[in-house]
């Protein structure tokens, strides 16, 4: 009797497979099946919806060739550099604006309103300034990620508990000590959030620039697959790219101690 009492609730509260998992599997299977059906039906132009087998073969081909990793490394290098330059510049400007209300009132509206403008339109200028090589892509990525990092850092700086600042000042901490010991640790979450947003837009900026004008990088591979109408390869690259970027975003969030991968 005692045995059954102990077993029953466990069996009810923790079924082998939860309903959510079942629903997820059902949704995925339905999507895949309808995709395959659409691919075989011939309703759309050939190859616009390639068969799942063709896409999986393309993913396998893509990942088993060294060439892809070379292009991936080029793009990753560009994004990393853009994030480093744009992130540090954004952080410095954000701290400056967050610390000084007068400066914030004078300059923050410009950042606030320039932030949500399309950055890719600056690409012709970046080409003129930094050439057709990786420089112009890095510049575009830098420009893209500067704004979210700066705005988050400024907002984070203003959100710091005043007590922490007073403690720092009562210990007569220097400006550098205040930045490294009080401001940055207290602003960790907004900064990580800004970096995540920055990473997202730097990634988009860099890759879009690569699709416009380049001879290496993932963006170049995608537009190359488009011009040769190699649709399975294009789908394969988009899938791998999405997985990588969602993973990178989640990783930055996890490292910063944020839950989930929401960004709005």
């Amino acid at each position, binding site marked *: 009797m005692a045995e059954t009492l102990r077993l029953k609730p466990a069996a009810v509260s923790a079924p082998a497979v939860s309903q959510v998992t079942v629903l*997820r599997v059902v949704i995925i299977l339905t999507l895949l099946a309808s995709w395959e059906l659409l691919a075989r039906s011939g309703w759309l132009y050939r190859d616009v919806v390639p068969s799942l087998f063709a896409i999986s073969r393309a993913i396998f081909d893509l990942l088993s060739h060294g060439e892809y990793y070379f292009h991936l490394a080029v793009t990753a290098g560009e994004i990393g550099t853009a994030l480093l330059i744009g992130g540090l510049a954004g952080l410095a400007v954000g701290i400056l604006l967050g610390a000084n209300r*007068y400066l914030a*009132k004078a*300059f923050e509206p410009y950042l606030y*309103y320039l932030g949500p403008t*399309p950055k*890719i339109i600056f690409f012709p200028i970046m080409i*003129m300034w930094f050439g057709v090589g990786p420089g112009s892509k890095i510049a575009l990525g830098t420009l893209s990620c500067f704004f979210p990092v700066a705005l988050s850092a400024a907002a984070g700086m203003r959100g710091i508990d005043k007590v922490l600042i007073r403690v720092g000042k009562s210990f007569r901490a220097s400006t550098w000590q205040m930045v490294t010991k009080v401001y940055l640790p207290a602003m960790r979450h907004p900064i990580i959030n800004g970096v995540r947003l920055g990473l*997202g837009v730097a990634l988009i900026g860099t890759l*879009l620039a690569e699709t416009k004008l380049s001879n290496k990088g993932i963006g170049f591979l995608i537009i190359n697959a488009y011009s040769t109408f190699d649709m399975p390869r294009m789908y394969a690259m988009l899938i791998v790219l999405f997985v990588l970027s969602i993973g990178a975003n989640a990783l930055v969030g996890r490292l910063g101690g944020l839950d989930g991968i929401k960004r709005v």
Partner: protein
Amino acid sequence: MTDAAAPRPAMRRTIPPQVVGLSSLVAFFLSMELLIQTGVINRFIVPPPSDIIGSFGRVIVEENVFGRFLLTLSECLIAGVLLTVVGVGGGVLMHRFKLLQQACETWVAAMASAPIVLMYPLFLVIFGRSMWTMIMMGFVAALPPVILKTLEGLSSTRKVLVNVGRSFNLTPSQQFWKILFPAALPTIFVGIRLGLIFALINIVGVEFLINFGGLGQLINELAERYDLPGTYAAICFVILVSILFFMTLEKIERWLRPFD
């Protein structure tokens, strides 16, 4: 920038910060003009601001800027209608069926962090070089925030309001239209505003990339013609348009939620 970096306390009291911001901007453009005119900066890389201002009229008249602006705006508004219908509908559906929400919310959030706009070559294949490529790209890229904000608005309705509805024995449909939806409306509008901004960014971006359509194409065309002052003027124009668009949306939002 230097005059604003360390304003003296007396200055702080007398000069409003907005004036400092604006005069720094003017000082920046004046110094650029000087550096370009004296040959320190190559005028074939950065045209002097006076040339850019001078080419505004030419670009507006010769390049049919108004027509292009209307085209981009209409693409953006169609995407906005689609976003509102599908995004809000999707959010409501996910809120209504909790299981669906538990299963899909993470996916939608993940899509919000994916570079969806990179799918534009794919959309080009599906929709061809037409305005529908831009509209669908803007719509798909901006969909996740609208769904997530709708869901957030509906889920964060105050418990007391829901309980009032229950105590009046409202039917589920009445409960939704009289309680949940009005309470969630401000947050839903935040989602629609974000969605429209994302849509505009993506639409102008794709227009530029595929050299087709309204304002984005204008920049590409002028850049390909190596009309540098024209390119800079067109970029300034697009930035102005997006800032105005952003400000208008903010105004509408404030008008919709006057009590916040």
